[in-house]
């Protein structure tokens, strides 16, 4: 013990060092304090901003797209939720993560999830591979934590099952997204159009370079409707044309998130958020169309036996479109993305491959030779120019030699005046009309009735059609102008073409005393609770410059087409209806290519069958156009369908007004004569 207590060894060697050590330690801590001063006092505000940005996220609040209804209030397009299943790889398959990070209480739920989602074995293997690839690292922002879309548009029962077992299946999230829903499916698909996911090209239009870093106002200017990746945008039809009304404005809400991206709520989270917390989304405007869906259904029923064609029904004294039907059609639900992207792709490839072009709206985008339905305008041209005496009869031998070319007529009509020529559709009579009036005055009269120019419907790309003139031929043909061109024009053949919509409006004008209306598809814009924001009155486009007595004469001839025993549509007339109209059988001039099979060649060689009508004849309410592409004869194919649609219209009107229904007429099926194609 004593040696412990002897005087200790000399500490003198260390004496001088203590001060230096103390100084060094002091300086070292001073540096730390300096650094803290820099971080907390000088840059404190900056770091506070960063810390705030770390946890406050602006979550966009979805808006609902406006509902589209028909004139009677039937819903034509609305939104429904589609439930998509996402899997977070790191939580569904924790065993895939690097081993030292996984905690013991996590178990693999992926196989249960896959069972619940009814993922087939092949897909299951593929997804499992993707999950494993994502989880090679599990840092906080690795793809291991990024949700993976596994199934789109889950059926309700699977959604219910997943929600019930939510607590036992960590790693699966069911997210609902709005998907456009068209309850009438194919019906009216062309006029309604569809909503599709915005494509990259369109998006770059709204997101110019540097968009991410633009101040809010500039962003607003470049992208007023706030499009983002994955948004739906109206692709065609009303959905496209009225996009800015239908879309609505997204809102946002500030939410507090932690480092793993989980939302936090409660008073602590509330305290962090700075005002304003939330901007409510503005729902899109609802649209009320002029379309009468029941009449549209009637058009669809009428066309059921036909391959391809179009129907237009327009209110004669307003220009409001009651039915626009184009066949073949498509189901916009397949293109709206509800069933997943694969279904959209598949549907598109099928639609593009179809030779009957189902995506084309034939009512407005298809231009066809009007055939004999054009004759009233030729007749009017001649009457206005006073170059033909309507009472004078011309002789029809069934054909006419014109140079070396022979013009054929359907029959040997004998001696016909203008009324009979229109009613019986005599081509020979109209060679005289053409010769007397001349091409340009016929063209002028066609233009008076809106033919050859776009109607301005504003939905879907519209064809202007063509009304040829001498100057048009001068540009088109190197050779001499021939009288034959004029003869063709007078009977709606050759270079002449119109869209069914143009013809409908022109016939409405024939019936209503010459007033050409703007076609109207949208009746009103409404708020989501039904208040009318904007109501669109009918608009007159043009008043045709024709003398009333001439118009009356032509209208009388059109009445004779249906009601005179010799009229072309007389055999298919409905005696309970008061219809005036004109049949047409337009040759298409189809020349079969060598590799086309006989059946196809036969189909395409058939004429377009037309019927253009207005009803009631004296003071028309509606004008109806029916065209069957390659349908053959106008009087036998198209006219009965138009009559049927007019009959349905009357029935609907009566039902809505509470009047007794008109009797169903037995349509006389046996025809007095079957007109040859090309000259009805």
């Amino acid at each position: 013990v004593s040696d412990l207590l002897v005087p200790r060894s000399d500490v003198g060697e260390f004496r001088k060092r203590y001060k230096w050590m103390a100084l060094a330690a002091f300086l070292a801590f001073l540096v730390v304090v300096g650094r803290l001063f820099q971080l907390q006092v000088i840059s404190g505000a900056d770091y506070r901003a960063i810390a705030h940005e770390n946890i406050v996220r602006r979550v966009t609040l979805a808006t609902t797209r406006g509902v589209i209804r028909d004139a009677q209030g039937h819903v034509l397009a609305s939104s429904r939720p589609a439930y998509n299943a996402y899997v977070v790889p790191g939580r569904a398959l924790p065993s895939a993560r690097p081993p030292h990070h996984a905690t013991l209480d996590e178990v693999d739920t992926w196989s249960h999830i896959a069972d619940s989602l009814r993922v087939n074995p092949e897909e299951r293997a593929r997804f499992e591979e993707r999950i494993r690839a994502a989880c090679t690292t599990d840092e906080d922002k690795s793809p291991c934590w990024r949700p993976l879309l596994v199934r789109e548009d889950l059926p309700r029962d699977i959604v219910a099952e997943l929600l019930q077992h939510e607590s036992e299946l960590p790693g699966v999230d069911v997210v609902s997204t709005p998907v456009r829903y068209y309850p009438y499916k194919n019906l009216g698909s062309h006029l309604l159009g569809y909503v599709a996911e915005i494509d990259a090209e369109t998006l770059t239009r709204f997101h110019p370079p540097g968009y991410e870093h633009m101040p809010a106002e500039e962003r607003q200017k470049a992208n007023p409707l706030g499009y983002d990746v994955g948004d739906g945008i109206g692709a065609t039809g009303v959905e496209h044309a009225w996009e800015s009304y239908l879309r609505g404005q997204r809102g946002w809400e500030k939410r507090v998130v932690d480092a793993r991206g989980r939302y936090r709520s409660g008073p602590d989270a509330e305290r962090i958020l700075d005002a304003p917390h939330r901007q409510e989304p503005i729902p899109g405007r609802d649209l009320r169309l002029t379309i009468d869906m029941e009449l549209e259904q009637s058009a669809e029923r009428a066309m059921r036996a036909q391959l391809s064609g179009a129907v237009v029904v327009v209110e004669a004294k307003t220009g409001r479109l009651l039915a626009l039907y184009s066949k073949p059609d498509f189901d916009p639900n397949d293109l709206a993305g509800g069933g997943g992207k694969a279904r959209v792709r598949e549907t598109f490839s099928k639609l593009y491959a179809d030779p009957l072009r189902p995506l084309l709206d034939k009512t407005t985008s298809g231009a066809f030779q009007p055939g004999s339905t054009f004759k009233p305008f030729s007749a009017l041209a001649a009457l206005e120019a006073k170059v033909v005496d309507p009472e004078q009869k011309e002789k029809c031998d069934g054909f006419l030699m014109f140079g070396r070319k022979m013009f054929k007529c359907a029959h040997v009509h004998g001696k016909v005046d203008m009324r009979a020529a229109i009613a019986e559709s005599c081509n020979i009579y109209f060679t005289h009309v053409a010769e007397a009036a001349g091409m340009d005055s016929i063209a002028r009269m066609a233009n008076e009735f809106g033919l050859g120019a776009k109607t301005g419907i504003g939905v879907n790309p519209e064809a202007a059609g063509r009304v040829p003139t001498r100057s048009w031929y001068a540009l088109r043909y190197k050779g001499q102008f021939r009288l034959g061109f004029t003869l063709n024009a007078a009977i709606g053949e050759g270079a002449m073409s119109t869209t069914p919509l143009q013809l409908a409006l022109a016939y409405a004008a024939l019936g209503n005393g010459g007033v050409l209306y703007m076609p109207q598809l949208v009746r009103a814009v409404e708020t989501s609770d039904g208040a009318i924001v904007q109501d669109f009155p009918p608009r007159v486009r043009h008043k045709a410059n024709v003398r009333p007595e001439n118009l009356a004469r032509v209208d009388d001839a059109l009445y004779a087409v249906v009601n005179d025993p010799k009229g072309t549509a007389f055999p298919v007339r409905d005696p309970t209806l008061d219809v005036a109209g004109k049949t047409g059988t337009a040759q298409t001039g189809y020349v079969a290519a060598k590799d086309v099979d006989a059946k196809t060649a036969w189909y395409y060689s058939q004429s377009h069958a037309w019927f253009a009508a207005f009803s009631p004849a004296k003071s028309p309410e509606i004008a109806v156009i029916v065209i069957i592409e390659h349908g053959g004869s106008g009087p036998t194919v198209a006219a009965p369908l138009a009559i049927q649609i007019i009959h349905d219209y009357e029935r609907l009107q009566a039902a809505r007004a509470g009047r007794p229904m008109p009797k169903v007429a037995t349509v006389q099926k046996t025809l007095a004569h079957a007109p040859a194609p090309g000259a009805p």
Partner: protein
Amino acid sequence: VIGGRLLGRARDHFDWALFLVAALLGVIGVVNLYSATSVLRASLSDMYVQQVYWLVFGGILATIVAAIDYRHYERLGYLLYAVGIVLLLLVFILGRDIRGSSRWIYIGSFSFQPSEFMKLFLCIALAKYLHDDPKSEERSLKDLVVPAILTGVPTLLVLKQPDLGTALILFLMFVSICALVRFKLRQLFYVVAGGGVAAEIAWNYGLKGYQKERITSFLNPDANVLGAGWHAHHARIAIGNGGVFGQGFMRGTQNQFQFLPDQYSDFPFAVFAEDWGFLGSLVLVVLYGFLVLWAIRIASTARDRFGAVLAVGVGSLIFWHAFFNLGMVTGLLPVVGVTLPLFSYGGSSVLTILIGIGLLMNVSMRRFYVSPGRGGGLILG
């Protein structure tokens, strides 16, 4: 009578400043740990309670360590050192791999890190060597061969685990203790040059990939925010977010929203700085500064070389831990896993620091030793 006299002496000689500062740090540390783990309460079941147990246990150990005359430690110096080395070797046999390194010995449900305690054993061994080798003339490198070996063996064993932080602390403690003795100036140049070469070799062959990544991410902090730079990046934001007055207790968003990984082990200061701001941080740094300077003061008043070296050793242990941790958390230094004394969660770390403080208390209390013969027993001698 004797008992009363002994207690009276203990009271007179007791280093109240040392005790109070250490106790204050312990209390603040637990309070901060409460905040740091509050968000994880469910998964980290009441870590702060565990930490209180460690602090109480460490306090008891420190009292015992302080009560036994440090000259007994001097006597047993090399034996203690040998025990430390054996424990370090046992790590390789009994250790388990956690996050790519094995640092722990498991005995039943109990586990500890021998490398932590090795710091104290090394301190004692070096103190004994310098105590036994008094010199008044300047030393040459030859005189440091044995201390260098004493340091080198545990340092290499710890590097092998691998635990770069602890190895660094061991080495720096050795350097600090060496700073006490006088050197020939020329020899110092050799040391610096040799150190440079060693660093080069260590960089190329010694360091693991993740260790290098941490250093490069320190040199270029914004390059890899999501990867290796994540810790440093978010710790810096947390500190800055504290501002002058802090966000308030348990209100630091960086911590509460889990942007701070290892907030209870290596980064508790970021939590503290965010909650209490610059003023709170200043208080904390002053406390650590005081503790280190106080240790130097204790060394300067020590009656013998062993006590002086011991005090400087423990002082350097606290200094390097605090400086490295604060430097790393504030972004002054690369991220190496070094705990903040009495702040970081962990039994081995807390016990080591508290035993170290017990040793300081021991040296401090025995500065009043006047002459042989008056001292009573071994216990309070």
